[in-house]
């Protein structure tokens, strides 16, 4: 306890609200990232299937998904812009000193994102007029632009974890910048692939989860089967890959950021034959309360042998490592992520086995219940992975080179708390509206489908408004120039 109190007293008052604000906005943005990175890919797979097999249902799904993508992408741009402002508003010290060392990644990301925004606009608005083949081909670069964008962001983040590509002058300022080295840092490769696969899995399970719920509610037509099978299969293929990648990144952390690894596994003293704790709480004196202790396992996982020496938190002075509470947070986040990941791999294996043995999708209610939860679970896993990597790096913003406290803005803490409050309220409204809009779209489509099934015309005039086709307007204009009320198509409910 005394050490953390001491550290807290040293920290400027604005540190806590600044961190909370960054954490909150980033945690919110992260929910949208899997959709931004991998949803276009999944939609294109569905689109391809529709074109290839002349499957109208697949095309319909792709079209509807792209309508969802439009709303989601807009929200992603908005929350992403906030983050780039926060670099200046909250962490001016970070960018002021290190901007020219690691900022280039953001440059790549910005251009890639720009490309993605352009391509998404073309894809979304091209359904009606472009030739099917042209339209699909114009959509094809989308996943690559997304990969390039992820490249930039992950380069920046992995640089913060394992900074290199510069040397310090006598005043402690970076000189002799080597951009190439600063991008391809030791943690870059592991982080990048771990991230990309995580995005594919999460997006796949999120989308298929929607149709799993539909299945559970008795909607088992071709539309729902397809809407479930395509994203779920993509995620199921990626899940075992992630198992291997996740294991490999943990070992990279062990080698490159030993103190972070110690926090994630709550290892207090450097030692061999270190036990693994599932959950549990690290106390200030280094003991662990609660949790399940598995002897030797941590050493075995880190180096394949019980004799592997694992560096402990006490290997560095108290002011250069996460506090006991931070270590516990990182540890729990890490454990939850691993547990969810393992459960998802199991689910994917069940799916694969049933396909191999019976050549049909699973029919068990429990399978679809799990699949419905898998979407939410994978989002939780993504959040946990991010918490583990960020909290585990504390107190550093640039590992071993700059403390979070040195980077923070000098704005008064009251102002930041107020801003945090406003941002929370605004974001709640944003994400609430996002959900409401999605649910409304769903209801509208369902109603339309039911009408169609019932043999109705399905083209009730109000169904095309308020964003109906462009054509009716000029006619209405000439008959009622200037007056809007006469436009028959514009019936607002």
């Amino acid at each position, binding site marked *: 306890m005394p050490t953390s109190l001491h550290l807290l007293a040293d920290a400027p008052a604005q540190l806590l609200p600044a961190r909370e604000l960054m954490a909150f906005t980033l945690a919110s943005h992260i929910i949208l990232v899997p959709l931004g990175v991998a949803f276009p890919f999944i939609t294109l797979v569905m689109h391809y299937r529709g074109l290839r097999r002349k499957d109208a249902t697949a095309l319909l799904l792709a079209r509807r998904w792209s309508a969802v993508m439009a709303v989601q992408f807009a929200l992603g741009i908005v929350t992403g812009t906030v983050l780039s402002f926060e670099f200046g508003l909250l962490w001016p010290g970070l960018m002021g000193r290190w901007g020219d060392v690691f900022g280039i990644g*953001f440059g790549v990301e910005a251009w890639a994102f720009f490309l993605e925004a352009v391509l998404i606009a*073309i894809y979304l608005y091209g359904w009606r007029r472009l030739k099917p083949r042209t339209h699909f081909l114009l959509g094809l670069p989308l996943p690559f632009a997304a990969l390039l964008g992820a490249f930039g962001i992950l380069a920046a983040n992995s640089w913060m974890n394992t900074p290199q590509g510069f040397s310090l002058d006598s005043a402690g300022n970076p000189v002799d910048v080597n951009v190439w080295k600063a991008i391809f840092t030791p943690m870059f490769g592991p982080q990048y692939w771990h991230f990309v696969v995580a995005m594919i899995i999460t997006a796949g399970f999120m989308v298929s989860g929607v149709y799993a719920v539909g299945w559970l509610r008795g909607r088992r037509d071709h539309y729902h089967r397809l809407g479930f099978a395509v994203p779920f299969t993509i995620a199921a293929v990626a899940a075992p890959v992630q198992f291997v990648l996740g294991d490999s990144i943990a070992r990279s952390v062990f080698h490159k950021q030993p103190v972070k690894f110690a926090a994630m596994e709550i290892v207090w003293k450097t030692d061999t034959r270190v036990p693994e704790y599932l959950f549990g709480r690290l106390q200030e004196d280094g003991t662990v309360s609660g949790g399940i202790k598995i002897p030797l396992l941590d050493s075995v996982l880190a180096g394949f042998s019980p004799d592997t020496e694992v560096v402990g938190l006490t290997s560095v002075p108290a002011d250069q490592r996460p506090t006991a509470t931070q270590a516990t947070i990182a540890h729990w986040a890490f454990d939850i992520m691993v547990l969810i990941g393992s459960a998802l791999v199991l689910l994917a294996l069940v799916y694969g086995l049933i396909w191999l043995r019976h050549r049909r999708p699973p029919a068990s209610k429990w399978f679809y219940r799990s699949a419905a939860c898998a979407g939410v679970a994978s989002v939780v896993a993504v959040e946990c992975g991010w918490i583990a990597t960020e909290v585990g790096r504390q107190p550093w913003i640039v590992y071993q080179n700059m403390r979070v406290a040195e980077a923070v803005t000098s704005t008064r803490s009251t102002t930041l708390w107020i801003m945090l409050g406003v941002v929370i309220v605004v974001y709640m409204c944003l994400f609430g509206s996002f959900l409401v809009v999605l649910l409304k779209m769903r209801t509208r489509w369902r109603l339309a489908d039911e009408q169609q099934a019932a043999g109705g015309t399905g083209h009730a005039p109000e169904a095309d408004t308020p964003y109906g086709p462009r054509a009716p307007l000029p006619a209405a204009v000439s008959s009622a120039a200037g007056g*809007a009320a006469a436009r028959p198509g514009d019936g607002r409910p």
Partner: protein
Amino acid sequence: MTADLIAVVMLLAVVAYACAGGTDYGAGFWDLTAGGTERGRRPRWLIDHAMAPVWEVNNVWLIFVLVIMWTGFPVLFQTVFSAMWLPLALAVMGMVLRGAGFAFRKPSRRLADRRLYGAVFAVASVVTPFFLGAAVGGVASGRVAPGTEASADAWANPTSLLFGLVAIATTAFLGAVFLTGDARRFEAPDLIGYFRRRALGSLAVLTALAVITGFVTHEDSPHVWHGLTHGLGLLFVVLAGAASVATVWLLRRKPGTWVRVTAVGVVAAAVIAWGMAQRPYLVPTSLTVADAAGAQATLTWLAIVTLVALVLVLPAVVLLYWLDTHGELEELTDSELRRQGGGTAGDGAAHDS
């Protein structure tokens, strides 16, 4: 040398944002002033349709400005964001509300919802450029220097206030000019006159504000005033004036594509004139381009990344604007999100999840 090049790139990114983003904010301005639900329905309809395919792209330019700033000129980034904390924080909140309001207004159908989202979008569209303009004004008037703490004086001063108002007038002008063209493209002849009047009106306001700004900068920011009245700065001021005259002339005739070019020319020339007037400073009289520049290697790479990106992105942007202006891009309607004919193979019950 590379630093100067990157400074020019940054200025051009600001120009792009001022033009593309400005048009976008301007559409929001006219949305706000379009009147009640009934009266404003048609202008709002046009604004929605004209903005939808391109608004996201328009706003990404700002991200470039920020990225070039913190990668190429880290000290500038730190200085501006420390000193201009409040206006920039308010501007980013405005951007959030604006983007969200626009995105959610489109798919929602209840009148109350559309009103709420629309109001949020429109108000934020006016507030955001004001604060961005105020921040720029604070920089131009030399009230900021490396190490300046955030204070009200940095942005609540005559130059900032006027720059804020000029920013709003500029967006309104660009928005109206572009919507005039869109009205023609969407075949809504009544709206052509509607937005043409507004374009002319806002240009008049903009000119008046520009003259007042001239007097104020003379007192308040002598370095910029000197730059604007000499050499390259003066040249671009004259160009901006010529472009405005051309815009008025083109607007009074049948507006075509050229009026967009001249309108963009007005704004671009004005922004470049400001950039030229600041030379050699990024922040007048305290931070030069050379002092603020980041590591040489980074600047070189930033130039390379920009070049490669231009090669990749430019064709895509051109394609987008081309497709957009040729009416190839259209929103999906509900009927297209519905099953066609209900006869898709193997469909039993037609439900949706």
